[in-house]
């Protein structure tokens, strides 16, 4: 069986190799801090496997995470001068290889697709080939490995250090933004155990007037939206707002159609995901990936759509769910 953990080890290992390259890169004035930051993430990725299955304590990893935060937060990480091709060389390569360049790029989505719809159902000796519940991650991982092989054969690139150092340049240019999504997921979990959700639920119930269906609909949707803004994740907001308003008021008291109320409530939360920097993997990481100067560029592009769709969810729920 192909396990998701293998790909986490592969990612960890490539971070470690890249950290080695960063350490020896004299063009980076902050090469030690940069190498330490990515090296720690690499070790953390591998060590995490034993944290997840409960065989190793989580505290050392927590210390490492806080060290990463301090390294990046205090400006001890930087980037070297990428050793890559010039624009003229790229144009020449593009003319030479033409649309064959798309073959490896499209290999990733195609393999991911095949894994998700085909390989996921295959079994060898009763056991699934792909670890259950991780098929999409595995598809992406297998797709990336296959695409790398295809690309190296097609481009006649012999040395593995070329793609590794290309990937490292991208990592260095994204910098700390790469770690932010995992930090925010952690923060969401800490908020949950320390009772932030319960408090927000209490406040919501307190501001809700009795016997007004339409106000209750607005409070539920707006609550999902705002709480998702804070948590960066509609999944964290859903149980809180549903326990406070969605179920007791909208479904039980006003006899709403439960699937409609709950599905639209979740989608109202997704509108919040579109406009919060706390959803860093959707909003901040792409800004870094696309080398935008304005890290809020994607959020600004999404803001009007999110506002209109929040209104749509409220109207659809008010009109059709009761």
């Amino acid at each position: 069986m192909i396990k998701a953990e293998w790909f986490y080890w592969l990612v960890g290992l490539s971070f470690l190799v890249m950290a080695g390259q960063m350490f020896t890169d004299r063009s980076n004035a902050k090469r030690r801090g940069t190498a330490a930051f990515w090296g720690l993430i690499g070790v953390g990725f591998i060590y995490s496997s034993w944290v997840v299955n409960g065989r190793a304590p989580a505290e050392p990893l927590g210390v490492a995470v806080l060290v990463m935060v301090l390294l990046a937060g205090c400006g001890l990480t930087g980037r070297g001068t990428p050793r890559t091709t010039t624009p003229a060389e790229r144009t020449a390569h593009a003319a030479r290889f033409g649309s064959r360049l798309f073959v490896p790029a499209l290999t990733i989505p195609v393999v991911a697709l095949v894994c998700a719809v085909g390989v996921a159902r295959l079994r060898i000796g009763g056991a699934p080939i792909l670890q259950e519940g991780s098929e999409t991650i595995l598809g992406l991982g297998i797709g990336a490995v296959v695409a790398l092989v295809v690309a190296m054969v097609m481009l006649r690139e012999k040395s593995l250090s070329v793609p590794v150092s290309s990937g490292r340049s991208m990592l260095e240019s994204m910098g700390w933004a790469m770690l932010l999504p995992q930090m925010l997921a952690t923060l969401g979990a800490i908020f949950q155990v320390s009772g932030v959700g319960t408090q927000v639920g209490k406040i919501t119930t307190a501001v809700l007037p009795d016997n007004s269906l339409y106000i209750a609909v607005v409070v539920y949707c707006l609550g999902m939206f705002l709480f998702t803004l804070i948590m960066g994740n509609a999944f964290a907001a859903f149980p809180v707002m549903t326990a406070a308003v969605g179920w007791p008021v909208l479904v039980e008291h006003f006899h709403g159609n439960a699937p409609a109320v709950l599905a639209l409530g979740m989608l109202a939360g997704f509108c919040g995901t579109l406009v919060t920097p706390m959803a860093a993997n959707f909003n901040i990481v792409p800004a870094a990936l696309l080398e935008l100067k304005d890290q809020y560029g994607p959020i600004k592009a999404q803001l009007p759509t999110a506002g209109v769709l929040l209104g749509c969810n409220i109207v659809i729920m008010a009109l059709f769910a009761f």
Partner: protein
Amino acid sequence: MIVLLGVLVVVIGFATKRHPLLVVGAAGIVAGLLGGLSPREVLAAFGKGFADSRSVTIFAITLPVIGLLERYGLQEQARNLIARFAKLTTGRFLALYLGMRQIGAALGLTDVFGHAQTVRPLAAPMAEGAAERRHGTLTDAARERIRSCAAAADNVGRFFGEDVFLAVGSILLITGFVNTTYGTHLEPLHLALWAIPTAVCAFVVHGWRMLRLDRQLERELRAAGGSTGGDRPTETTHPTGHAGNATAAEATE
């Protein structure tokens, strides 16, 4: 009530533009300690949170191959390709991408598209290429705008497509939470059906905004064209445009 100070740390931190990692780290420590965790438990929470959330960083596995292909001119070729389809403007291309992303997500293929694997190497350069063919040289502001819109098309398509698929996390979360808490028997199918109206709204609203983008770009670039003209040596020929901009971005960091 005092645990809400953790939320306050986040809001103030982001509002005053402190380093996001420091803000989130501090907020986690504050919320954890005020919520009754011991310092040791706070450390364990950070460690466990990192371990459990590695899947959001797994896209890093695609970076070496994407980086290698970009060395060999993948983005330039994406621009060349889009230049052959004269009718495909930036807005129409992004609306098409939005639709494909929604349909893909609705079929459960959320990770087939994505910012690292399709937006950066393909969708963003194609959207820029289409704009360059139509408007000539792009200003930095227009380039940023187009790239932001490419990222936005991916997010909107994903969010408002995935809930139409039965086995997606959010649908399973709803049924799991409600069925165990309130003892009901909600079917994922009914929830997924109720996601369709919003999915249609999302395509209409965001698709319309993308189509309007063409006119906005035209207006902005015409206004900018009068003052800055064509005197940007790194961006005068279109295949080198992106690379020129990337070096400019690096220089300003």
